[in-house]
């Protein structure tokens, strides 16, 4: 992900997405560049409203129309610009086929009036042309793959008769039935208990390895992204403000926002939170998106937009000596103190 010259399997370039509002077009996403290699896991962290779901929808061609507008940029997947594909091509070749998706609320993805079997049958018949016994056999295989118990019994149940964790496993089974190469998982465990969360993550991890899938994992929990993903990107108000190996980003955050985010994670009772006063400065319309909350911002931050710059940090060099040129990027004029 670090070498600009290599071709990424999946790459976002100069993407800008906005929503039409009464006051004009409101920009919500502005990503200069984001690349994911084949078989790699990339975790995108950002708070509520940062634009994570909008990004997932944009990739899949599901941005609500006509409010949502792609203003600029390209999303290259295996050499093809997804933004230039017709809706028909997206539906027939990519969405739910080469690109799989799992959303945060399994109830909204499953249809409450159909049994598990009815939901899976439709997908498998459509995708693999299987019918009758063969289709049932394949369905049971898929339910086994996601480690659901007692599949013969379970397949006749309705979504509301299942637990949140079971529902999410069924979503995963359906999503991955097509042998996707790229998985977008938008906070797949957000509505689940921690006890169930670990199981779902291990399942996705195992399937990712088995199928050598690339994964864009969206989450608001930095610890989780760090455990789950090799690379991490931090999204703030639609902009990628930091990127690097997730280990490095967590241990040595460069951007003031990432630093605050990581120090804000309460660790123990003995550790007092490091900040309690909000500094609210006016927004810098033409400057750094973090200016209004940044404690170290200076005059020029409010008039210039910082671009992602590369840093070579000690921790990245030490912790990953097998990787050449471990690079961390941050979009801040004063990142890391010394430059």
């Amino acid at each position, binding site marked *: 992900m670090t070498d600009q010259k290599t071709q990424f399997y999946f790459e976002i370039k100069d993407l800008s997405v906005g929503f039409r509002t009464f006051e004009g077009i409101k920009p919500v996403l502005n990503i200069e560049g984001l690349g994911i290699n084949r078989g790699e896991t990339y975790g995108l962290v950002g*708070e*509520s*409203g940062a634009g994570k779901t909008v990004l997932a929808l944009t990739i899949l061609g599901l941005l609500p129309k006509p409010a949502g507008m792609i203003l600029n940029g390209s999303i290259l997947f295996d050499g093809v610009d997804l933004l230039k594909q017709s809706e028909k091509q997206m539906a027939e070749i990519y969405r739910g086929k080469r690109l799989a998706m799992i959303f945060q609320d399994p109830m909204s993805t499953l249809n409450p009036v159909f049994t598990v079997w009815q939901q899976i049958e439709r997908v498998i018949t459509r995708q693999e042309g299987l019918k009758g016994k063969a289709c049932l056999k394949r369905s049971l295989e898929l339910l086994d793959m996601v480690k659901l*118990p007692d599949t013969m019994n379970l397949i006749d149940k309705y979504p509301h008769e299942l*637990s*949140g*964790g*079971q529902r999410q496993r069924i979503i995963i089974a359906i999503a991955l039935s097509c042998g996707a190469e790229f998985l977008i998982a938008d906070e797949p465990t957000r509505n689940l*208990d*921690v*006890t*169930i*969360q*670990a*199981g779902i*993550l*291990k399942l996705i*991890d195992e399937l990712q390895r088995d199928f050598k899938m690339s994964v864009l994992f969206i989450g*608001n*929990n*930095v*610890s*989780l992204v*760090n*455990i*789950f993903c090799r690379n991490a990107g931090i999204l703030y108000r639609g902009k990628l403000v930091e990127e690097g190996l997730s*280990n490095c980003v*967590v241990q040595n955050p460069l951007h003031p926002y990432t630093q*605050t*985010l*990581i120090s*804000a*994670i*309460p*660790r*123990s*009772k003995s550790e007092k*939170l490091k*900040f*309690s006063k*909000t500094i609210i400065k006016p927004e810098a319309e033409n400057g750094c998106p973090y200016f209004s*909350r940044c404690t170290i911002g200076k005059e020029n931050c409010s008039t210039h937009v910082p671009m992602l710059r590369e840093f070579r940090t000690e921790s990245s060099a030490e912790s990953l000596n097998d990787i050449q040129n471990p690079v961390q990027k941050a979009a801040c004029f004063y990142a890391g103190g010394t430059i």
Partner: protein
Amino acid sequence: MNQPLIKVEALKKYFPVRSNHLFKTQKQWVKAVDGIDLEIQSGETIGLVGESGCGKTTLVNVLLRLEDSTEGSIIFDGLDITRVSQKMMRDKVRKNIQIVFQDPFWSLNPRMLVRNVIGEPLSVHQKLSGLALSEKVESLLDMVGLPKDSLYKYPHEFSGGQRQRIAIARALALEPKLVVLDEPTSSIDILSQAQILDLLQQLKEKLGLTYILISHDLSVVHYLSDRIIVMYLGKIVEQGPSEVIFNQPVHPYTQALFNAIPSLSMQNLSELQTIEGNVPSAINPPTGCRFHTRCPRVMPICSEIEPKAIYVDKDHQAACHLLKS
């Protein structure tokens, strides 16, 4: 030890459900809270943890008398509130127990000015109005760190974190003794969350409040709580001082629950533990120890005899056959 602020004994809350089996309709009970004993000292923060559906909200609703209990007693400040009339509850008890809900946006009336949102309990209970009301609300706004000019704004003009501050100011208006915090920070971003936790901690110290905190985020529970109560299927399985429960939990369920929390120090998914299987139904909970269907250390006795809560240390109780007092 002082007399506790709340003493709960053998508390049960069953909800009737009807299950339709072709010809006969059978009446069954969801045993949401099934025999709970607990004491809360004045000035303590109690963290209530457990998986979804284990009965945390139901327990709190019964404590607030938003639901009537099925059995048992709740002595609040010397009075058994399961037996008092609704009028007595309203006049004497209600103002002492307040709740801050998960999503302040919905718990605050969107068409009310902040002055009235926060001031409503004051005008109802203390008959305050006009300038006196405004002044009192201003002091509450100041206490939760909001500017005075918020008075004449509507809730939607504030961010999630600020709306949560408004909800806290409203809950504190009548100077309650006990404040229930049900998922107080789960709908706000992490920077605001830290500030809200800090505010809650400061207010508690300043006003001598007692909190009952419910949160799925165990790091929030850890940060705020003095004592932790772990629930499983309507029962308390372990309770004790926060540090003890987080660092040396003795009940297999508590251990599994805490080992499932991702932390910044973890490097690998294998460090995250899972609990096999699903939470059983609260209609027909497992016999013996309710956790026996998922417990990694289950023994033959566990499905037959229900373990009693025993003291493993001063202030530290757990209910498991593996333990000796």
